[in-house]
């Protein structure tokens, strides 16, 4: 049986990454390398106000004093930060009046990815901000949203048009000197999305950002800022892909969420960056800082992530539960195959009274991959009646991969109730045979079993994306049982 499964595994893992194409678009790029001049040039090209340049330079000076973190269960080859391009933008990118003005090559790219930019063709009820390399190309449904006072645009535009809002919140959750990769992002970020939901408004559609790395030798540093005022609600989704390349590319993003009184923000990610080939060559380094603050009482932030891509993932979407009665949630599926490595999890920081957090993490490891869950639950002295429940499950496919769980607890208040459950399992041959006996072949059986295993998390995704995520898991895994 084992040899047959190995064969199957080989066949499937030899399957090419579906999104690995490259588009020829004329690019406007800065030369390789990073110094204060480069940062000033980025800021100049983006016609930024003075405060932004200061923000960037402060971050850069912080970054120079920092070192790349080495505490994760990851083997990260040294990165030459001078051998990288920090700004690349499609050349034909004037202010767009209509879809007809979008570079046809670009439109074709997004069509290929199944992300039509034409509003009539867009998935019903989803507004999209499409970002290629460093620049936002098109944001759909802006006018519809503006009627409700919702701002959904690229962060560059927000810096120009709503400087006060940006100045107030940017860096308020992830400060410019937070960590090595966040500092780098703060210094050089070129674009990303900005969302503002005014008081009492329930955003009527899913907001979505689509990130695409295209140019060679570039790093992608996007910055997302979401502000939800009192009694507002928004559900936001990001997706990402990249071409297949032999060298590694760095993606160091920062996402900040601010939720005020009774606001609710749901943030979902389907991460499918190029994972490298089956021998571990190439692939994206996905070093991302995501953090939300439940600033107002009774507010809620919920992170859902489905991580299947990237050569290395280093990512801990976190919630700072500052207001009383606030809720933080983290639902995660992290799948690693071949030589992928993932060290991902969350931090739940309980500061307010009666705060609650929930962590559901499902790791799936196949091939020679290493998959770690790392999570911190911290209850501060004044956080009366804090509650946390953590469920961390690992599923192993084959015996050459690794699954690890690193839970950290810091409890400084006796009224806290914290529960942690962890399981590790393998897909049983008896489960597969049971499916076989009903006419379901082994590949489909594995897909079915894995999708059953991650159901709790997938159910948190908006409908259309849940289906996509299921397919993605199946494609990334089929047959990898040994």
């Amino acid at each position, binding site marked *: 049986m084992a040899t047959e499964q190995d064969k199957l595994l080989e066949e499937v893992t030899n399957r090419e990454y579906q999104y690995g194409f490259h588009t020829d678009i004329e690019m406007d790029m800065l030369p390789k390398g990073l110094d204060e001049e480069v940062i000033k040039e980025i800021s100049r090209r983006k016609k930024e106000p003075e405060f932004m340049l200061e923000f960037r330079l402060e971050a850069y000076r912080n970054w120079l004093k920092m070192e790349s973190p080495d505490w994760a269960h990851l083997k990260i080859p040294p990165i030459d930060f001078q051998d990288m391009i920090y700004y690349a933008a499609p050349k034909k990118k004037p202010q767009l009046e209509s879809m007809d003005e979008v570079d046809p090559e670009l439109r074709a790219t997004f069509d290929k990815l199944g992300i039509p930019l034409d509003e009539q063709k867009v998935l019903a009820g989803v507004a999209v901000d499409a970002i290629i390399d460093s620049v936002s190309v098109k944001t759909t449904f802006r006018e519809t949203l503006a009627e409700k006072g919702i701002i959904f645009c690229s962060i560059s535009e927000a810096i120009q048009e709503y400087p006060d809002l940006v100045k107030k919140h940017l860096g308020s959750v992830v400060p410019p000197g937070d960590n090595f990769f966040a500092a780098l992002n703060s210094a050089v970020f070129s674009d990303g999305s900005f969302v503002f939901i005014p008081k009492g408004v329930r955003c009527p559609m899913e907001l979505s950002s689509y990130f695409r790395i295209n140019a060679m030798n570039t790093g992608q540093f996007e910055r997302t800022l979401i502000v939800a005022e009192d009694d507002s609600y928004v559900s936001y989704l990001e997706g990402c892909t990249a071409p297949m390349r032999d060298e590694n590319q760095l993606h160091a993003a920062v996402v900040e969420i601010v939720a005020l009184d009774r606001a609710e923000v749901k943030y979902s990610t389907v991460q499918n960056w190029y994972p490298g080939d089956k021998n571990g060559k190439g692939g994206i380094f996905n070093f991302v800082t995501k953090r939300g603050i439940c600033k107002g009482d009774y507010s809620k932030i919920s992170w859902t992530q489905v991580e299947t891509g990237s050569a290395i993932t280093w990512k801990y979407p976190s919630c700072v539960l500052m207001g009383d009665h606030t809720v933080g949630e983290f639902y995660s599926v992290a799948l690693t195959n071949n030589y992928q490595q993932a060290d991902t999890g969350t931090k739940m920081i309980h500061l307010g009274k009666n705060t609650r957090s929930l962590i559901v993490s499902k790791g799936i490891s196949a091939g020679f991959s290493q998959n770690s869950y790392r999570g911190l639950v911290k209850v501060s002295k004044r956080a009366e009646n804090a509650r946390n429940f953590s469920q961390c499950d690992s599923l192993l496919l084959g015996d050459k991969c690794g699954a690890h769980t690193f839970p950290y607890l810091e409890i400084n208040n006796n009224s806290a109730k914290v529960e942690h459950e962890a399981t590790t399992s393998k897909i049983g041959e*008896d489960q597969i045979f049971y*499916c*076989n*006996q*009903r*006419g379901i*072949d082994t590949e489909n059986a594995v897909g*079915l079993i894995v999708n*059953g295993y*991650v159901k709790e998390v997938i159910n948190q995704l908006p409908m259309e994306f849940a289906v996509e995520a299921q397919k993605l898991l199946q494609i990334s895994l089929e047959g990898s049982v040994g």
Partner: protein
Amino acid sequence: MLKIKDLHAKIDGKEILRGINLEVKAGEIHAIMGPNGSGKSTLAAVLTGNEAFEVNEGAVEFNGQDLLDMAPEDRAREGLFLSFQYPVEIPGVSMTNFMRTALNEQKKHKGEDPLSASDFLKLMRDRKKLVDIDSDLTNRSVNEGFSGGEKKKNEIFQMAMLDPKLAILDETDSGLDIDALRIVANGVNKLKRSDNATILITHYQRLLDYIEPDYVHVLYKGRIVKSAGKELARELEEKGYDWIKKEFEE
């Protein structure tokens, strides 16, 4: 429908089946009885293609095809069904999704179009009624948290959905209370037609009060040592297996 010729099979080098011969025709119900460890479940496992067992001799023909040459899923798609002695739990996978996947694989194999969602749900309702299964069972994950009786009833429900040509029921009666036993037996009786067949593997005669077999075979030490009509079951019930053992030990 099924022709087994001189079938030998082993697990971990130990021979369990030592020359089975059996022919099952359409429209027939065969009961295979025997003491524990005689090879009854092994026979079911070998016929359905469980790779833990190795066939070292013999041949099996299923509707004119070489059964042993087929992958387990193809055997199932060709109409071979096993009601498991110990049905397996698959957490998070709904019965609906599981059955729909299975049924559509069968359709694909036959070159037919998959069922539409509404036709599928209609079929589910219909089959549930036929075998008298609570709708609650099909709303849950495959066998997850089911009681022993629920698992067995669920096997019969799946059999009703997949409408096999040949169904093998491996100790489906064991551990059932009288009500569950009746539901299982009624299901099997209702599904019986002139163009399908059933093999009942059982330790006890009890099930045969509800399902009337055409033939009863006694399996002992990997061979069928006695075959007769349904009266053999009653004889076994009265006398136990000891007389058979005695007869064949010598």
